[in-house]
């Protein structure tokens, strides 16, 4: 507690390394805001011992919600990996009027509140659909909601890599007689794949925890359209904090796993730069 000042480097000689105050403040802030509450979740999940934890996590409804969440988040990440790469490609390599506007709109799912995203999809693809498509209360609705909220991740990960990509390689391949499809699969895709994967991993992590956009459109039918975050919410509402905490811990472990995977991918993506 006696460590005060300096942010800067002038007093570095005086014994306190630069960044001490900034590091101390940041760590304290994160500990109070994030780590203390998360510790409370882990502690509460083990309130009744490991057996009790396991009983909550392996209940039929919890397993069903977790399994559906994993599958649908994986599907959304895969679909958006394909379409995201395509959209990034069109935004970087194609030229058409209004491209700047389209590029700005990509971030809309990040800016739009999730509950509004859900209502928005319900307006077009719900019971009062003007185009006659109604997916409300189905598993497809959950997929649709996740596609909406995770759209920007892959696009925003691939775009900068595609911008930096050296066109010489493609021209060399073309001059050697490679066809566009071959060039894309053999030259471009290998360069993009770390960015695509890390974007898809972020989309997956987001999809696994998604709540707001799903809650209106899915109907939250147990064993059918109920996702894990909604299951946790219902457990909180029915005053079962231990059950809620247990499933939350599973979600937390998943998040950690994805974060680690992204870090590994990040190291993989930058290995050529050194």
């Amino acid at each position, binding site marked *: 507690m006696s460590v005060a000042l300096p*942010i800067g480097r002038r007093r570095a000689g005086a014994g306190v390394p630069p960044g001490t105050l900034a590091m101390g403040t940041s760590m304290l802030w994160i500990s109070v805001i994030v780590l203390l509450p998360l510790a*409370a979740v882990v502690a509460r999940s083990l309130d009744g011992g490991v057996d009790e934890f396991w009983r909550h996590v392996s209940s039929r409804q919890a397993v069903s919600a977790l399994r559906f969440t994993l599958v649908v988040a994986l599907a959304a990440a895969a679909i958006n990996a394909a379409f995201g790469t395509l959209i990034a490609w069109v935004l970087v390599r194609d030229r058409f009027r209004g491209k700047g506007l389209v590029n700005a*709109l990509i971030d809309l799912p990040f800016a*739009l*509140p999730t509950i509004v995203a859900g209502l928005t999809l319900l307006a077009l693809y719900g019971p009062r659909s003007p185009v006659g498509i109604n997916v409300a209360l189905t598993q497809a609705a959950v997929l649709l909601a996740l596609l909406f909220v995770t759209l920007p991740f892959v696009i925003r990960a691939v775009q900068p890599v595609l911008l930096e990509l050296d066109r010489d390689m493609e021209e060399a391949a073309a001059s050697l007689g490679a066809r566009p499809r071959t060039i894309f699969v053999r030259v471009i895709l290998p360069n993009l794949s770390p960015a695509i994967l890390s974007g898809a991993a972020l989309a997956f992590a987001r999809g696994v925890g998604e709540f707001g956009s799903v809650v209106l459109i899915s109907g939250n039918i147990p064993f059918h359209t109920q996702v894990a975050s909604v299951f946790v919410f219902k457990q*909180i509402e029915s005053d079962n904090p231990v059950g809620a905490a247990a499933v*939350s811990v599973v979600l937390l472990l998943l998040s950690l796993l994805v974060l680690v995977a992204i870090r590994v991918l990040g190291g993989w993506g930058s290995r050529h730069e050194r």
Partner: protein
Amino acid sequence: MSAERRSRVGLRVVALGYLAGLLLIPVGVVFYRTFEKGLGAFWASITTPAAVHALFLTLEVALISVPLNAVFGVAAAWALVRGRVPGKRLLDALIDLPFAISPVVVGLSLLLVYGRTGWLGPWLTEHGIQVIFSLPGIVLATIFVSMPFVAREVAPVLAEVGEEQEQAAATLGASAWQSFWRVTLPSIRWGIAYGVVLSTARAIGEFGAVSVVSGKISGETDTLTLLVEKRFQNFDLAGAYAASALLAMIALATLVGMTAVGSRRSES
């Protein structure tokens, strides 16, 4: 040549079609449904006492949490980029945590610390402090979910501008604080601005975490996003659309802000 052009147009149509079906048309329908009965109906719907209270509560929460996040974000970015202290890798990993955690888990975690049966619950009750089901809980949830934005935007800018100018200031006799305020801060201001825009959008739009800790007391702890859900569940679809349109307008303003700040940032 024409085959290449055809495939390029084909890809463009598929890409734009996906964006239209997923983003543009649904948002357009919400705006259409909101305004099909005229501007007056929209205005009446967002100026009811409950809606006005929700709007002000939402703004109040953002006004408290965003500045705190900005200060933390700059400090964290500084520690990550300029720091010569241990713990940088740990801090780097911890900052991203809120992005990967479900909002419902965030809400639950706060409940288990500050709630009636939480770790600090008995102490808080004894001292008459209410966190859960009132403003402090909503603020804590908002800070949690919008924490990483400023740090993540400022860190690369800080690395980009380098240390030379700060070192020059130091040799000219500037103190660490002077150098920070007069040299560092101006050079990272657009990075901070970008992070603040993102952080504000998230603060205004947070739903899941707030939904767990607010208690949804009408006219007291209902934020705008909670109002959307409540109106929808009370079969007031027009009202839900109106509140959604208001939030969507805030989101569009955010995009404009991002574009404006983004171009300033890349110029400097």
